[in-house]
């Protein structure tokens, strides 16, 4: 932890020390060595309950590169094995409603089928996405979030890296999930999941 901090601090280098109107410097952060301690500060009481979260949901998903423009996303919940349930209809795109809405800090999750029993479904071409491709989400509060694809990965379902896919993100991040790999006819299930990682960028 401390080594990480020092490494991060060392990564900053002074680039311009003679700039108008006054010289400027970049220095590593200095954090107090001692953890917070109880003091005689006038207490204001205890932590109160959070008000209900604002009811914001994604209402439109656009991925121009693979021709996706879907309105009316459906909320997704967890199943009995704590697994993310796919949309009940092969034609729907869903989002994990217990997680952040796309555009809010943290990893928002959107999932859809790659195919139905008879043909392609909304995320059939998801695997074609490449880093740099654009993903746009419109929200029920009128805000729009723009994401850039960072990586496309395929994981076996029996070794799905939950922490990697669903771990914390400082800014707004998006995980697009569908199926991939070989189809196990006996289990009527694809062996892998395709995960597209996307995040918000300044440029």
């Amino acid at each position, binding site marked *: 932890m401390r080594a990480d901090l020092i490494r991060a601090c060392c990564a900053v280098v002074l680039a311009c020390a003679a700039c108008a109107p006054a010289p400027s*410097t970049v220095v590593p952060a200095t954090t107090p060595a001692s953890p*917070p301690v109880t003091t005689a500060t006038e207490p204001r009481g205890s*932590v109160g309950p959070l008000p209900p979260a604002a009811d914001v949901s994604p209402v439109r998903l656009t991925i121009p590169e693979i021709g996706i423009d879907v309105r009316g996303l459906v909320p997704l919940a967890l199943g009995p094995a704590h*697994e993310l349930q796919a949309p009940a209809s092969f034609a729907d795109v869903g989002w994990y409603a217990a997680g952040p809405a796309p555009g809010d*800090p943290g990893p928002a999750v959107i999932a859809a089928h790659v195919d139905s029993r008879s043909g392609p479904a909304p995320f059939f071409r998801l695997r074609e996405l490449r880093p740099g491709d654009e993903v746009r989400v419109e929200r029920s509060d009128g805000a729009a979030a723009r994401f850039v694809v960072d990586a496309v990965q395929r994981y076996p379902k029996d070794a799905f890296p939950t922490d990697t896919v669903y771990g*914390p993100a400082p800014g707004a991040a998006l995980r697009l999930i569908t199926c991939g*790999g070989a*189809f196990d006819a006996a289990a009527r299930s694809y062996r892998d999941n395709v995960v597209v990682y996307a995040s*918000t960028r*300044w440029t």
Partner: protein
Amino acid sequence: MRLRTLLRPTGLLAAAGLLLLTTTPAAGAATGPGPGVGWIRVGHLSPGVPPVDIYFAPFGQPGKVVIRKAGYGAVTPYSSLDPGRYTLSMRPADAAPTTAPALSATISVEQQTAHSLLVFENGPDQTLRGTLVTDDLTAPGPGKGRVRVVEGSATPAPVTVGGPDGMALATNAAYGDTTPYAEVPEGIVPVQLTSGSVKANADVPVAAGSSTTLLVTQDNGALKATPISDGADLPNPPKLGVETGGGGTASGGDHSEPWFAAGVVVFLLVLVLTPLVRRIREGRAR
């Protein structure tokens, strides 16, 4: 005769092999890495400095404006970045890109890291100084969130920030200080800011799994506290993968349905057994 040809063992094995192919998992999917990006944001915490434009570019390339007119107290949203070296600079708002920047920093971004470049007027003779602080990317304990204080008030200062139930989030923090994160229960966290006789209260919403920076700024001699998000995890993250396919486009199409596989097996059995039974009967008849 045609039936006889089909009965040859090679034909039988080939048919069985074909069936196996559609059910054997393909190699190639590996438990690979995640997104492989780092994150950066910039904060203007210099009360005496007018709004700035923030320029940004990979190291060695001409900077482009990414944030316009960021005033005192503004912290940009995070941007994800591919690992590498980048140059961040600030110029007075609307100044020509050709003018010398008021501050410029080269930052090395590594994957799976998050940093805030906070710009204070705490260099020699109150010059601008960029401080790179490391932001939290780990998940807090169950039901908890994390809070830290960035002391961005030059006057009044230093500032003490009291948290819930007598907890101290910052004790006599000097202008430019960033405290370590403290874990607090999820909820509305009451805080009190104190600097000498100047006091201010704030209520900070903290969700479980989230990290928050409480930004302390000055406001005409008073103190102001503004919570900003340092990130969030997925509360109640799903386990395992997601069943998002019906197999309609898998190799074999509808033939990958289980009843088809069973049907093929029955068909092959009939093909094998029928002549056997016939031969046995013929043998008996003789």
